[in-house]
């Protein structure tokens, strides 16, 4: 194989810009997503400070609306999804015994598109104002007549670019999971985190095109003078809401399913039991994913769709409680009879259960259409979705970070600091969002920058803001933990938690080639099966040999820069700039297609060197 290039040795920045290694891309996602989480969190705290007292004047009117729009958008698209992608990238290929993902190049492209899309969106702060029409950007408020700054254009282009990255990332995971499983790793032996990554990716594949179309329509209205939402010329403002929620509701399951997956892994590991009702769990995941597409209009009960649509969507929505309940009870029964260890990872997983159930409770209450006439667009909804998103997804992601940190970085996070992290975040969380239920029920609409004194909302808001500050402290403790951990010398063992799945069969951090020899999988919880059989590790399915790897490439970065430039061109109506940007993109595609990547090999000596001293 003479064409294969010599092994490239990029270091430092160049390494990170050109890497196609899914583990490094996972770290990139984690760092970038974490950064945006801090940004979104700071925006949230600023909002909470404004709402701490009635009639405050810290962030008034449009400024507050910018904060709230950017908080929602940043958190959902630029923090939550990337951190989910971080864990999926770092772990899914390891869990299925794969050397790599199906499309390493596309994987890297997906990251850079997200990164530049997010950067573009956030640059709006410095270029005349951020978008201010809510993360849902309902027209006509988001149209040029009522939102005349470039803010919403940044939203449209930024999300379009980031969304493209997410979409190709989703396809990459689907193909990886379908085609790259190790011998013996059948679908019904896949760990639940991989299953949830699989279903989540499918949801991405089918949900994102709807928002793509929505954003295209909004962009055409704003930039080319089209009339989709222009009532005077026959447009229809409700159309956007449909397109947005056809995407938006599956999106919330895109957020929660990976967390469900993480909880399933963590709870099983720290109960020292196999997951109770594995096949029911898989089934429930698939059903949730499917039903997720059929309920979008529950965000639109007050739009005026009529009683028939309201009643049917209401019933469809409630149905989702059933498969979700299956999950909750199977987790409880997994712990039943186990030997539960309360590591930080498990604390977050255990804390997840009652908190998420509260969020689900309010979800079912919201699903009751006539009652939603009261809840809708009130703080009750804000409370609901932070319970499921922060109390659900964010707890899950924290749990996942503590659990897989050693596999990603080769070091264990500090458990004592971890416990501070958990308790501060947990208490702060409930303080912040529990009172908001009552604020909503007593008449406080959401998205208000202030409220008059004397309506009975002072105390609830005060407690909520204090809670947000406690949560900030909790998050800061996490950062401190990551920092402290990075400075300590001690290396993590391959299997620090006495865990069950394949990723723990290889050294921490995972070597570049993942598995020196592709393992042969002999059952659910592949590693546990071997441990129980008294084996020291996995049985290889192939002899040791040189491992073929894809070459790093700067093209994904370059193409994303091209999109970034083109985005600016569209926002400012500069056709030439757009054309230049798109030319860069096409150059990248062309170059990628024309010059075949022959990759390189990692030789047996090097593998042996790396694998030395690995013990379970």
């Amino acid at each position, binding site marked *: 194989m003479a064409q294969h290039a010599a092994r490239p040795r990029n270091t430092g920045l160049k390494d990170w810009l050109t890497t196609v290694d899914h583990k490094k891309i996972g770290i990139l996602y984690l760092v970038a997503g974490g950064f945006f989480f801090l940004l979104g969190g700071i925006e949230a705290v600023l909002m909470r400070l404004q709402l701490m007292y009635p009639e405050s004047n810290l962030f008034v009117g449009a400024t507050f609306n910018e904060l709230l729009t950017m908080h929602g958008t940043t958190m959902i698209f630029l923090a939550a999804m990337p951190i989910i992608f971080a864990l999926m990238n770092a772990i899914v290929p390891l869990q299925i015994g794969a050397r790599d993902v199906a499309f390493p190049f596309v994987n890297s492209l997906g990251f850079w598109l997200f990164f530049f899309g997010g950067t573009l969106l956030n640059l709006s702060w410095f270029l005349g104002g951020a978008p201010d029409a809510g993360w849902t950007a309902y027209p006509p408020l988001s149209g040029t007549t009522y939102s005349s700054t470039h803010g919403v254009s940044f939203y449209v282009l930024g999300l379009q670019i980031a969304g493209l990255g997410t979409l190709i990332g989703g396809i990459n995971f689907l193909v990886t999971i379908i085609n790259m499983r190790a011998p013996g790793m059948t679908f019904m032996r896949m760990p639940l985190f991989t299953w949830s990554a699989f279903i989540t990716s499918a949801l991405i594949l089918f949900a994102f095109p709807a928002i793509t179309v929505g954003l295209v329509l909004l962009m055409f209205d704003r930039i080319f003078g089209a009339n989709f939402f222009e009532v005077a010329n026959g447009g229809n403002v409700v159309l956007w809401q449909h397109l947005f929620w056809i995407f938006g509701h599956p999106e919330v399951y895109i957020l929660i399913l990976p967390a469900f997956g993480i909880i399933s892994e963590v709870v099983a590991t720290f109960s020292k039991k196999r997951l109770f009702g594995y096949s029911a769990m898989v089934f429930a995941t698939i059903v949730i994913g499917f039903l997720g597409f059929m309920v979008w209009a529950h965000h639109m009960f007050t739009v005026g769709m009529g009683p028939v649509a309201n009643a049917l969507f209401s019933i469809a929505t409630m149905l989702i409680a059933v498969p979700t309940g299956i999950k909750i009870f199977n987790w409880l029964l997994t712990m039943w009879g186990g030997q539960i260890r309360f590591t930080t990872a498990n604390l977050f997983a255990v804390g997840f259960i009652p908190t998420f159930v509260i969020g689900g409770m309010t979800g079912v209450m919201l699903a009751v259409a006539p009652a939603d006439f009261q809840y809708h667009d009130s703080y009750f909804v804000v409370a609901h979705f932070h319970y499921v998103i922060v109390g659900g997804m964010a707890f899950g992601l924290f749990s996942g970070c503590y659990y897989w940190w050693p596999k990603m970085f080769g070091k264990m996070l500090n458990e004592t600091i971890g416990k501070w992290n958990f308790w501060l975040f947990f208490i702060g969380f409930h303080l912040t969002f529990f009172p908001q239920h009552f604020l909503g029920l*007593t008449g406080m609409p959401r998205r208000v920058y202030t409220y*008059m004194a004397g309506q009975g909302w002072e105390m609830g808001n005060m407690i909520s803001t204090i809670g947000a500050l406690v949560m900030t402290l909790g998050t800061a403790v996490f950062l401190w933990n990551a920092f402290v951990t990075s400075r300590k010398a001690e290396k993590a063992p391959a299997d620090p938690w006495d865990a069950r799945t394949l990723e723990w069969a290889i050294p921490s951090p995972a070597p570049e080639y993942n598995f020196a020899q592709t393992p042969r999988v002999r059952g659910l919880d592949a590693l546990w099966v071997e441990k129980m059989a008294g084996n020291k590790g996995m049985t290889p399915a192939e002899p040791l040999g040189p491992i073929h790897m894809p070459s790093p490439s700067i093209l994904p970065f370059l193409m994303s820069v091209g999109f970034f430039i083109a985005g600016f061109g569209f926002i400012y109506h500069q056709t030439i700039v757009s054309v230049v940007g798109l030319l860069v993109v096409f150059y990248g595609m062309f170059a990628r297609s024309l010059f075949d990547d022959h990759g390189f090999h990692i030789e047996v000596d090097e593998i042996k060197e790396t694998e030395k001293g690995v013990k379970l």
Partner: protein
Amino acid sequence: MGLDCMMRRLQQVGRLLPLFAVLALMLTGCSSDPYLSALTPKGPAAEMQLFMMKLSLYVMLFVFAVVVAIFAYVLVRYRKRKGDNSIPEQVEGNHKLEIIWTVIPFLLLIVIAVPMVSTTFTLAKDYSQDKEAVKVKVTAHQFWWEFDYPEAKIKTAQELYIPVGKKVWLELTSADVIHSFWVPGIAGKIDTNPGMKNTMWLEASEEGVFQGKCAELCGASHALMDFKVKVVSQEEFDAWVAKMSKEKPESTTDGADTALAAEGEKIFQQSCVSCHAIDGNGGKIGPDLSNYSERQTVAGFLRNDPTHTGDEAVRTENLKKNLHKWLSNPEEVKPGNLMKIGQLKPEEVDALTEYLSNLKRQ
């Protein structure tokens, strides 16, 4: 982390729970505004909604109790004990259990769903042909509400007068962006969409001034887009209709500084009438200001009787104060509002305040 440590933590959580309960009580019971809260319904629609809220809450609380009971038991009973390194039985699952926790939630949902469907249809009833019902056309604007009584030919802003115990049939639309009409104490909410017409019925079972809110983000001053629903007795309502619908112009009467008011009227006719109507004469860009002296609020949210004293003198005094504040700098009071006028001179503000605060229909 040891057992005692764990127990301590559980106790800490336990200590928090009553705190939450107390908190909940305080928030709902004592301090909330009875004319604003969805929890103190004063009309059949809000009552039905509260019933559905409670029903679903109780069902869900039951579910929550079951989950927490199992949860607590498991956490206490099955935590790992020091030195115990045995390997628990690796249970695969249990079909019977799976069926139980699929079917029972399903049945619980039916309990919610059946009354849900009937309530949904009741709330969607059409009273457009009902001769008894008061018909009102609602138009939302950035950031104020216009109420139009087509039968009585009355136009008002910010305040919806309705008779107690009667059905009111609303047709709602918007002049610009999407807003949402919400009166928590009497009924739920419905969006006002530009280019479309939505409908909804209202009925209040008690007299009083109910608070209304715009519930859909509609721009910079979405937070301040309040309105009032003034529920009065049938006689009072009839009197109001008679007063408002007759052709007779407004007068500035008793106790007013008439010279100042006349000056105000002059300024008004020069600079304001292009947007505001009084007695049906004037522009439609801003709220109709007829009978302004009886307003509960200025600009929809500056309350003239914030503590519900019902005292006319207090209300009038606050009306003047608020009006003065508004006219001195509308942008500061309500950011982004569409009353784009240059800075008025203090004398002009005084004169206009005097004029408007004495506008009264006889």
